[in-house]
């Protein structure tokens, strides 16, 4: 704030401005997809230890019932998204590429949307510790895509002090609009979720940061503030990767997360709007996270929109529902800048899936353009939000000088946002080079 707002919306230096492609979905209300005939529910939908299985093959479960419990602190439970019978428990494809243990749930044809299992709590009566436990019980993770357990993020170690909760409503990835729709359609739940997060962390101030291309959301949320002066809603510049924690904190507060550190180190906790809105809805009624809003869009989709999709729904089923245009396609889970592309139609929508993007031939063709040598144009330096030197890092990667990359050129500060690859006129896959370099450095350190 402060000096940054004198010159319009807050922002950070560098970044890129890809075309947003949000218009196809941003103005339609969120709709609900029916249940598929089976769900694929991985036990590791979150970062941390996979959940511990509570059910057996052949067992009947009702919608909302826990299927797996948290295995330790950095883990969350998993709840049944639909009523049905456990058909199998085995390795299945996952968005990250590797096979993961998953529950295959046969959904009963007559299954309804009614949640049949819940464990209500009285949020007003909870102390911070109790609130953390209640949040963990919902199975909540960062719905922006990181899928980091929310209760861990909201647990403040004793030696740290936190003064501000930053609520991330940037949604800077092109094509995605699920957070935008959530802010417009569920402002009350969002405000409630912000209260719970403040209660859990003990912070006295919350700032909601929303990109300027969503001023309708800014206006609506401000109307819901009433006289609560401890929550404010700020517009920030529309620019990728504004929604990265480090960038958003810089834009809103002018603080820089130190290298290798996390927002907690500078007294900030960041949560996504979708996460807190879901928390505001689920926590008081004691329900678990069984579905989420997913933006299904892209030139390859006939009916783009935001859909409430039960967790575990195979993407093949989602595509059948929304209709997709055949031919050569690329399927991306999340946004086009950071989302992984998947090949198996049985890959399920999980807690961290914010979007399902289908790009078809023209976009793909553009991507297969030839790779030219680096011409040292320096565009990547002017795009990198971390102020790294991707050009030199790329040249070093070509020479396999991975250690030099980490030691002299701060490779490990790269969070793979993709800005450098996006602007590179030579089409050099810089991010991929950096991923490989990091992986090799990690292996050598181990």
């Amino acid at each position: 704030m402060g000096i940054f707002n004198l010159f319009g919306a807050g922002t950070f230096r560098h970044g890129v401005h890809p075309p947003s492609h949000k218009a196809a979905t941003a103005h339609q209300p969120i709709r609900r997809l029916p249940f598929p005939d089976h769900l694929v529910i991985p036990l590791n939908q979150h970062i941390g230890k996979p959940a511990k299985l509570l059910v057996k093959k052949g067992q009947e479960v009702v919608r909302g019932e826990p299927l797996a419990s948290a295995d330790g602190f950095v883990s969350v439970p998993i709840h049944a998204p639909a009523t049905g019978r456990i058909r199998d428990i085995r390795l299945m494809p996952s968005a990250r590429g590797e096979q993961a243990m998953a529950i295959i749930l046969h959904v009963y044809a007559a299954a309804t949307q009614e949640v049949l299992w819940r464990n209500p709590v009285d949020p007003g009566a909870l102390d911070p510790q109790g609130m953390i436990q209640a949040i963990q019980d919902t199975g909540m993770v960062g719905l922006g895509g990181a899928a980091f357990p929310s209760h861990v993020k909201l647990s403040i170690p004793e030696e740290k002090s936190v003064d501000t909760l930053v609520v991330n409503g940037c949604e800077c990835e092109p094509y995605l609009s699920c957070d935008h729709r959530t802010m417009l359609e569920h402002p009350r739940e969002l405000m409630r979720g912000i209260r719970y997060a403040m209660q859990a962390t003990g912070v006295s101030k919350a700032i909601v940061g929303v990109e300027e291309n969503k001023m309708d959301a800014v206006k609506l949320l401000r109307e819901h503030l009433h006289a609560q002066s401890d929550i404010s809603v700020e517009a920030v510049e529309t620019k990728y990767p504004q929604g990265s924690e480090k960038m958003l904190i810089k834009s809103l507060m002018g603080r820089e997360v130190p290298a290798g550190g996390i927002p907690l180190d500078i007294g900030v906790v960041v949560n996504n709007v979708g996460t807190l809105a879901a928390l505001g809805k689920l926590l008081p009624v004691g329900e678990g996270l069984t579905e989420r809003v997913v933006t299904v869009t892209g030139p390859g989709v006939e009916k783009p929109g935001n859909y409430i999709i039960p967790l575990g729904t195979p993407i093949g089923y989602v595509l059948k529902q929304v209709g997709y245009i055949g031919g050569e396609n690329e399927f991306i889970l999340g946004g086009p800048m950071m989302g992984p592309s998947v090949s198996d139609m049985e890959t399920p929508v999980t807690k961290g899936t914010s979007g399902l993007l289908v790009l078809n031939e023209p976009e793909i063709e553009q991507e297969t353009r030839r790779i030219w040598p680096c011409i040292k144009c320096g565009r990547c330096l002017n795009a990198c939000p971390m102020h790294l030197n991707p050009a030199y890092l790329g040249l070093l990667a070509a020479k396999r000088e991975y250690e030099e990359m980490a030691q002299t050129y701060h490779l490990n500060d790269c969070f793979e946002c993709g800005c450098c690859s996006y602007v590179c006129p030579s089409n050099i896959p810089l991010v991929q080079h950096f991923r490989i370099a990091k992986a090799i450095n990690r292996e050598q350190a181990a």
Partner: protein
Amino acid sequence: MAKKPAIELRTTPHIHAPQDVIMIMRNVVYASLPMAAWAVWQYGLSALMLLLVVVASCMLSERVLNAKQGNTLGDWSAAITGILLFLTLPPGFPLWMGVIAGFSAIGLGKALFGGLGMNVFNPALVGRAFVQAAFPVAITSWTPAFFDGRFTTLIPSTLTAPFMIPPETGEWNMQVAVDAFTGATPLGLQKFDAVSTPVLDLLTGMTAGSAGESAALIILVCGLYLAFRGMLDWRIPVAVMAGTAITAAVFHFIDPVAYPDAMFMLFSGGLMLGAWFMASDMVGSPVTPAGVIIYGLLIGFVTVIIRLFGGLTEGVMYAILLGNAVTPLIDQVTQPRVFGHRKSS
């Protein structure tokens, strides 16, 4: 699903900004064509033939010497080198020397280092430096602009037989010159005769010089086109011009009689062409934000020093080559401060 779709698996990011190397290079060609056209308008048939010969020599050299990388003519970089090299040569430059200039530009300036992106120096200037050393007389033999019959007759030196010394053109110059043409460039006049040329003449190209070094205005417009399309780092030409103007102004302030003013320094000789089209060459210039400023200022400073105190009348070429040479060093010492770190290291 009825039929299994063809599925692409790729790494992130899945979208890409529209500009690629070919598009940038093509636009540099577009931007340099008006300058070449102006040179042809000024000097006629000889200039046109020199342009074609130099560009052909560059492209042929690229095809032969870079054959290992396949056909790289499609990236247009060899054509750009050819056009820029032509613009630095005197319009009556013998064609056979033009062939050598083009060959050395690509051969010594680029292929030797490994082709596109690998070269240390600007290839066009390497070619020009080579022929300057090899043919010191021919490279300083100027021709009056807008001479009569320039589209029907050739400058006598143009068709010199290979490996022969070109004929003396002084007498021919006197015959064709519209007014009293001395065969001297504005910089030469300034340096040796202390005669200043009006800035307006410099801007519009009513002077003698290399094919592309006159008409600063056209160069400026072409450069601005690239800058506005984001295909040229505007900070470099601006820094070069700032470095030139500041250095020239300081000397002019010390002794206004001996040293010309900043405007003259900016718009005479090859400064505009060098600043906008050669110093700004991406491959040879620094990549760091602070680096490009230092690099530009250094080129401007060195240019003025050479012009004022060196044996040559013109210093832009050596200033840029020097700038190219120290670019890796500049990049090293100007690494940006990484987000979340206290200081750059």
